[in-house]
């Protein structure tokens, strides 16, 4: 073994490691592109997906935009039964808003959820919900 082999080996090793590092698919934290339509701001969870107006309201001019029907929300959010299933842990104490004691799974999305303004917890109209519900985003 010649003495200059060792530094060469080390260089190769280093090179290998550098290549490895560059290849690693580390998730970058990126700045979100906010859909900053200040008249109709959208919620953070829809912003994160960088949704545009037309993704919900369809092609067409903005003046013609109408409030969505439940069915349109459900083109992404699947079905009311599925939404109930996702929080079925709340059914044990009959506190699930998506499968409620009074309404089953029949409530309209808009009873609570609003896209362009603050959401409202309809259950809080009558019940003290602090211990069994988070504020609706």
């Amino acid at each position: 073994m010649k003495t200059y082999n060792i530094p060469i080996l080390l260089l190769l090793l280093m090179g290998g490691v550098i290549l490895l590092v560059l290849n690693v698919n580390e998730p970058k934290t990126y700045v979100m592109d906010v859909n900053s339509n200040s008249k109709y701001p959208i919620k953070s969870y829809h912003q994160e997906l960088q949704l545009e107006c037309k993704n919900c309201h369809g092609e067409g001019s903005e003046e013609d935009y109408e409030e969505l029907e439940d069915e349109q929300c459900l083109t992404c959010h699947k079905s009311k039964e599925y939404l109930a299933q996702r929080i079925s842990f709340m059914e044990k104490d009959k506190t699930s808003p998506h499968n409620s004691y009074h309404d089953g799974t029949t409530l309209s999305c808009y009873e609570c959820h609003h896209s362009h303004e603050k959401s409202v917890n309809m259950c809080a109209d009558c019940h003290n919900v602090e211990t069994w519900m988070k504020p609706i985003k």
Partner: protein
Amino acid sequence: MKKTIIIVCIGIVIGLLVSLGTYKGVKETAGDKFCILCHSMEPMVEVYKEDVHGGNNALGIKAKCVSCHLPQDTLMNYLYVKAKNGAVEVAITAFGKPENINWYKKRAHRKSFVYDSGCLSCHTNILEQTDAENPKQLEMHKHYESKLLTNKKLSCVSCHISSGHESLRNKLNELKPEYKPVMNVIDGGGH
């Protein structure tokens, strides 16, 4: 000359053994049986088994834990993340307090531990589809594609939140309930 041949042969045998060992090692640490060795993974594996990705389908096909939770784009990537995660996870389990981990919070960073290359390694043609039962699917996948080459990539799990672990939140609530409901009465509304 003879010495060289012997050294080379021994080298080959050792090389084969090492590579076989490495291969086996990598393979055996890829399945749910290994991942579940850590107690904290129990709820995830339980719901995975009920999920369509965990064998609950007509064909009995399963996606391995690593298929989604390690990058599937290059071998180097895969091995690097596997080794790194492995070391970190073992350290936490051995020296830390895994029972204190807040899994609800972890789910919010799902983008950092569920790799698109994983999803796409099985769902190879999903982005090229032109026909779908739900037209929204095509629209959203086009949307995803349009962001791929930007610095604001979306992730499959940005939308497909509970793929692989459907009902995980329900399962986690069995162990660490999010709420302590105090059964309450109508306080009259006040209107």
